[in-house]
């Protein structure tokens, strides 16, 4: 636990030390929304649909590339230095992955504050449950990204190729940007095996204030699966790297 806290605070420090990058990260999704929202048919109704989508998408973008930070540290030698330290191997991964929650939360807060004047209706309980769920997902996804960085050691292009190849299809078939209701059957079938679909659906229900529903249950299950699975894969990769 203490080891995890040491790694977590080390990871977080550069973020807090450079407020400019933090502000930039926070404003990014708002900017994106401002460009995209006018294209949606009915602005007031669709904000409720679109804001949780952008929250998930920002988390996806930010967290899936986080392995590149580790990659840089593997190249410069600071990761090796951490491996020689007595810090526990799982802590080296969990501490890093937990840090992913922080920018995600900050982005969401800014996004919500920015959209309330335009008609976004805030349901605090739903949003809180939604963010807790998203945090679990974030940790899992971050772990997977770190695992990818660890296994592609020495061949950095592999990391980016895999990350880019997976990110967009996952994003599209989860119906984050566009609803899949009018899509062909095979696309819908694909979306049913994408955990992200359940997560986004659950976030949309939660952001609408509905907490107890099957959709939320399915989303929670998807988030926990990604969270636990991601950590398992990540810790294994970190242990193997140390051997």
């Amino acid at each position: 636990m203490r080891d995890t806290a040491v790694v977590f605070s080390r990871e977080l420090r550069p973020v807090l030390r450079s407020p400019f990058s933090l502000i930039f990260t926070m404003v990014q999704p708002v900017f994106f929304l401002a460009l995209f929202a006018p294209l949606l048919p009915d602005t007031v109704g669709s904000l409720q649909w679109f804001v949780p989508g952008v929250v998930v998408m920002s988390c996806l973008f930010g967290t899936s590339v986080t392995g590149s930070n580790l990659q840089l540290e593997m190249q410069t030698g600071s990761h090796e230095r951490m491996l020689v330290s007595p810090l526990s191997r799982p802590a080296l991964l969990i501490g890093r992955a937990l840090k992913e929650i922080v920018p995600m939360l900050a982005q969401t807060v800014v996004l919500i504050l920015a959209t309330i004047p335009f008609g976004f209706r805030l349901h605090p309980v739903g949003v809180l449950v939604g963010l807790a769920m998203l945090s679990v997902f974030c940790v899992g996804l971050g772990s997977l990204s770190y695992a990818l960085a660890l296994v592609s050691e020495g061949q950095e292009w592999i990391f980016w190729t895999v990350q880019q190849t997976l990110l967009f299809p996952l994003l599209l078939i989860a119906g984050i940007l566009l609803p899949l209701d009018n899509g062909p059957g095979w696309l819908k079938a694909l979306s049913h095996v994408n955990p992200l679909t359940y997560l986004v659906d659950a976030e949309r229900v939660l952001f609408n204030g509905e907490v107890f529903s099957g959709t939320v249950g399915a989303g929670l299950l998807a988030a926990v699966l990604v969270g636990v699975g991601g950590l398992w894969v990540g810790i294994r990769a970190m242990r193997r790297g140390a051997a």
Partner: protein
Amino acid sequence: MTSTVGPMIKTESLTRHFTVKKKTVEAVSGLDLEVRPGELVAFLGPNGAGKSTTLRMLTTLLTPTSGTAEVAGFDVRTNPRDVRARIGYIGQGNGAGHSQRGRDELISQGRAYGLGRVAARSRADELIESLGLAEVADRMVSSLSGGQRRRLDIAMGLIHTPPLLFLDEPSTGLDTQNRVNLQEHIRRLHSDHGTTMVLTTHYLDEADQLAERIVVIDHGKLIADDSPARLKSEHVGDRIVLGFDTAAAAAAAANRAGAFGGRVEVAGATVTISVPEGTQLVPKLLRGLDEAEIPVTAVEVTRPTLDDVFLVLTGRSLREGAAA
């Protein structure tokens, strides 16, 4: 307590294989080594000889394929965490994250080794002071010069005052001034704190000037292990070159010189004698030649370098190997 009583490092048949393109490469094979507390040992060998692989096994970064290694009293395979807590490691790269500030990294390094917040902070201050990093400690690591980063690396490796410190190619990439500076730090650490030190290098002069004991590694095997002076006298010896007026005088001198031992070679009007303690032999030799009335016109004594040692041991020059 085991760490202070027994050897600091003890390996038995330590071996590491790598599989490269379905072929097994023995990076380190059957290494037996013992390092006592307080020693300053250099692993010397060309690139790819197995120095770094050995170091990585001793620091728990690599698991041995076979054999055992005990470091600071603990087995690297079964008790890696106990080993890690007792050693410091300064790798080939930069220990501090480039997006971090030096002071922050020092403090988090201290926390990683179990220091409390206050203790980590004051230890960081201490090291910043003693390594002359005060002006740059609060800057981003990526903006520091190579020499400053290396000093920061040393500070990081020392944060928990380890009884055993590993340095992997510590001076690679540094200019001469920074290299001298670094060697000075290493020497001081060793003499002031009695820290046991193991470093790898392919710089001959560095190993020669710094280490009390040199372990020569080539093709994954230990091929020599002694002090620099003994390595030289045992394997190469000094070379005495005597000059004469005529080839005849040289031949006569070579004849007499044979009685003093060593290997004698004649080339024209010069005689070359290879012998372990050349400087002590020269006065006797000159007196003998004087008595025989063979006039010597020039004398030169060359002491061997570690490269000569390496050449004798392996048939290859380390300088060529390092340059390749």
